[in-house]
């Protein structure tokens, strides 16, 4: 096991820079998830750690050693690819044993290591099959088995679950997390799915447009997003955003929305009329007698709770309520944010104000 550190890492394809100086520190045994929309540079970053892409500028350290010029096979890493990248002409056993064979390890040692990995992943009875004869989830396990057999310093996962169906994805998510708890190998996991990030990570790195937006624990990011992007990306259903201008009513600070309705906000050393974006999580909105007027669009009962989609001052707002509402589309209701559960962002820069 080893720590991984990225220092001012940049990547350019020709003149087009896709990663703009990224710093990430991953401690020994940590499970870190790089999450962001497609094209944010997260996969490129992972491939640079693996040694499959050259590093344009900056340094990558694995176990306190700079590996910029070290070829992939000498970095002591294992990677699980999105399409699994299993060798189709080799059986499951041969796939898992390939790295051992290349390293010239003995037959008995190879057999023992593969059997052990197969046991961990429940692949014992499939060892003589070809990848074609396996289901998606089984192939996924073989890809992980191939990584485990190498007993590497670092596991790298490149969107490993995105080719699986929804149910299997949830199951494999748990399996990967369990595996990490058991092996405690440093892991870097790339995904565009924030739920995967939230459920699996010790630490999440949110990326956007080649930059790190914020780094933190899953709940840390959820409770304290540093900017509009992180606030909108983490959490499902996503945080609601209402744009307006700062105002005051005596000692109280307010936000005036486009339709003239007002919502209270914490005190701020900013002048009236400053353009801001107010963020409220769906579960922090209460439907009742007070609050801003809203027009119901759709009501979705999920059993445990009810999701009410409505329009507030022209913006789409989602409310998640434990109560069972039976509103009709077009009905007028009022929604009120819970006190102290609102976020205020600068409308121009997107930075968190309060």
């Amino acid at each position, binding site marked *: 096991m080893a720590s991984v550190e990225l220092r001012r890492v940049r990547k350019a394809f020709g003149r087009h820079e896709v990663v703009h100086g990224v710093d990430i520190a991953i401690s020994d045994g940590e499970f870190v998830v790089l999450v962001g929309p497609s094209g944010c540079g997260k996969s490129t970053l992972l491939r640079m750690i*693996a*040694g*499959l892409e050259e590093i344009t500028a900056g340094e990558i350290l694995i176990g306190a050693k700079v590996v910029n010029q070290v*070829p*992939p*096979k000498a970095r002591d*890493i*294992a*990677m699980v*690819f*999105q*399409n699994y*990248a*299993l*060798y*189709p*002409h*080799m059986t499951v056993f041969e796939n898992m044993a*390939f*790295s051992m064979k*290349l*390293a010239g390890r003995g037959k008995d040692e190879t057999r023992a290591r593969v059997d052990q990995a197969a046991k961990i992943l429940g692949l014992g009875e499939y060892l003589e*099959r*070809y*990848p*074609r*004869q396996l289901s998606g989830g089984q192939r996924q396990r073989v890809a992980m088995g*191939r990584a485990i057999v*190498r007993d590497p310093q670092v596991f790298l996962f490149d969107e490993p679950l995105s080719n699986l169906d929804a149910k299997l994805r949830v199951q494999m998510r748990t399996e990967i997390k369990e595996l990490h708890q058991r092996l405690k190998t440093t892991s870097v996991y790339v995904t565009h799915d924030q739920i995967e990030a939230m459920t699996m990570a010790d630490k999440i790195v949110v990326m956007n447009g080649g930059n790190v937006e914020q780094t933190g624990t899953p709940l840390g990011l959820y409770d304290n997003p540093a900017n509009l992007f992180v606030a909108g990306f983490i959490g499902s259903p996503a945080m609601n955003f209402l744009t307006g201008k700062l105002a005051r009513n005596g000692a109280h600070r307010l936000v005036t929305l486009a339709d003239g309705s007002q919502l209270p906000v914490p005190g701020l050393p900013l002048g009236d009329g400053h353009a801001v974006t107010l963020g409220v999580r769906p579960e922090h909105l209460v439907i009742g007698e007070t609050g801003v007027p809203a027009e119901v669009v759709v009501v979705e009962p999920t059993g445990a709770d009810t999701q009410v989609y409505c329009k507030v001052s022209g913006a789409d707002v989602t409310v998640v309520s434990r109560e069972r509402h039976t509103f009709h589309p077009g009905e007028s209701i009022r929604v009120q944010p819970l006190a102290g559960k609102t976020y205020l962002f600068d409308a121009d820069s997107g930075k968190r104000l309060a």
Partner: protein
Amino acid sequence: MHAPAAPLPSVERSPLSRLFDNRHFLGLLFMLPAAALLVLFLTYPLGLGVWLGFTDAKVGQPGEWIGLENYAFLVTDSVFRLSVWNTFLYTAIASVIKFALGLWLALLLNEHIPFKAFVRAIVLLPFIVPTVLSAIAFWWIYDAQFSIISWTLTRLGLINSYIDFLGEPNLARASVIAANIWRGVPFIAICLLAGLQTIPPSLYEAAAIDGATPWQKFWNVTLPMLTPIIAVVMTFSVLFTFTDFQLIWVLTRGGPINATHLMATLSFQRAIPGGSLGEGAAIATAMIPFLLSAILFSYFGLQRRRWQQGTKD
């Protein structure tokens, strides 16, 4: 499949209209034009050729059934036996070298090179040029007096007298094989290149992480992934080479002293200029078993591997 008939009030239909509603009848009917073309242009000439082989037909004379007499004669004919030997030698050497060069070229073209599309187009040129045209060019290159190879070598001071490429038996064999290779490599290279491009790059990345050297990647990933297409391409290459005619006919007409006669050229020479249609047809028919065994070898021996097959257990 017939949909279950709806319980409509029964309507009287003529037998003809019911016939035209029959899937099997319609299927046969629609196949007729294609079948007629195949019979006319494939089965008939092939059948005629095989039949002629059992007759003593000459040009301008219909000929009579003489059974295996032609074949019995050919077995004792040293020229025919030489041509069989030549054909095997020609096919074996040319195919092996074409495969090696073609694979090498495909691997090179698969790399990121400047002007990729242009270079690939150029590589295909020998395949596009009409065989007779390239054969004439080679004839000139191999000419006893005007050969550019001899000229270059004398200028370089490597030889004193011009080489008679097509005048000495073994030299002539090597020369026609070289010309065939020049013509055949592009086909193999382009087909294998297409095969190489279907190999997912992630396999090479996985192999790189697993610790494979470039040679190990080639041996453990490229070659096994390429075997299916190699099997198909080499079957075609062997068939084309085995039945080659144009190149030899233009360059040497089978000479010197029949050293470059292939079964195809000998068959033509005996049948048309020589007038012995029956004997020529017998030589051509004698190629069929060899060609058939080449196809069967590739069909059974190099068929789809187990790993390519579906999810059958």
